[in-house]
């Protein structure tokens, strides 16, 4: 039964358990990706295995999201030339996301 719930290598719970009514195309570091409208952007990046979102201030080590609720500020990405926490934004058609701040 468990195998029905998620597609192999797909972290999203399958559509027979939760319907995601609409999909949009977003651009992640130059690649076009389909993602469910309304999904948290940090989660979209995570599901697409973009685990490294930025590089740390002094040591320039790779960082991904930690808290997912707007507190830790580790999920910072660039959206339309602004630095934003990706856990505070959701998927909309046409969003352009760039990871890798402070590389």
């Amino acid at each position, binding site marked *: 039964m468990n195998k029905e719930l998620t597609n192999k290598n797909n972290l999203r719970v399958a559509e027979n358990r939760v319907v995601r009514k609409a999909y949009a195309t977003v651009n992640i570091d130059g690649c076009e990706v389909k993602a469910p409208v309304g999904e948290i952007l940090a989660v979209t990046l995570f599901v697409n295995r973009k685990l490294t979102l930025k590089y740390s*201030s002094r040591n320039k080590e790779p960082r991904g999201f930690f808290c997912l609720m707007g507190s830790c*500020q580790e999920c910072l990405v660039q959206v339309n*030339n*602004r*630095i934003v926490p990706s856990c505070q934004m959701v998927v909309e058609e046409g969003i352009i996301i760039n990871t890798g701040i*402070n590389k």
Partner: protein
Amino acid sequence: MMENFDVAVIGGGVMGCSTALYLSRNRMKTIIIDRGALCREASGVNAGTLTLNMTRASLIPYAIKGWELWNSTEKWLLSSIGTKKVNGLSLAFTEEEEELLSQRVQARQAMGAPIKLISGKEAQEIEPGLNNSVRSAAWCAKDGFTSAYLTGHAFKKALSQENSEVMEYSKVRGIEIVKNNFKIFLENNEDITAKRIVLAGGVWLEEMLSWLNVKIPIKCLINQLIITERMPTVMKTVLSIANGLLSLKQFDNGTILIGGGWQGLGDKERGGVEAIPENLRGNIRLACHAIPELRSGRMVRVWLGLEAETADALPLIGNVPGISNAYVIGSVHSGYTSGPYMGWLLSQFIMGQETDMPLFEPSRLIN
């Protein structure tokens, strides 16, 4: 503590710390006392700007010396506080500002400041991130900044190395003159005896002088400072505007500090209490007008620093009026820059030497 000190400095900001450092180097048995940690008030929370553009014209010679000291801290302070020497620009965006700028430049040039009036276009060559609408600018090559919050730690180390006694977290509640000595009473009922005292309490000088029955009113400004998170490089100079009410710089770590003296709410007793939202927005709008790229960042902290100002906006450096062996130093607008040099001058005075530059007679301000 019953030992008899040659000098007790009350107030551990940059003025008091510098004075204490020079005196202890000249073999005076020194103690410096602060109710908190060294340089945690104005000297630790200011914007760190080392500027001639924003220094009062008559204080330019002192600020130039101060600038030189901050640029050679390894020699006298023995550690770095991140001093960065960069170009300074004071900007004019309107006709009125151009006129004001021209006046201020002339006044400072007359006092020996290496400041030059340049066109908006020339300013943009020095600072490409500038708004295209800049009309003219005052350019000073001898400009820059430090990381003010590192000052206390540095002084503490230097003073300890000179065997100066450093007494932090000790509040003084009064002073008495006993025979030919000063008895300094602390809140925990300890007392300290010294042959000489130096009052260096910044915005609290008015209260300190009243311990000795001397009345000099000191105004307390509540200055707003704003810092962003680390951002990509958008500027490489220190910026101000014609009337002085902006200070803008980007540190090596990418954070951008916005200041300039916009006021918040607070007082001497409570400290800085809160920012005034319209002033917060206004200060940031002004900064963004100068460097439009600033818009892409985020503000992460606002704080308020208390700054002291005398009635004529010039410092107090010299004898406490009417009391021998008692000295006072401080309360000067943008005093961080000239602090180490003014401390040097007072130390010369205390040791009976002729001072390299004139002092500022405190008795002129007696009420």
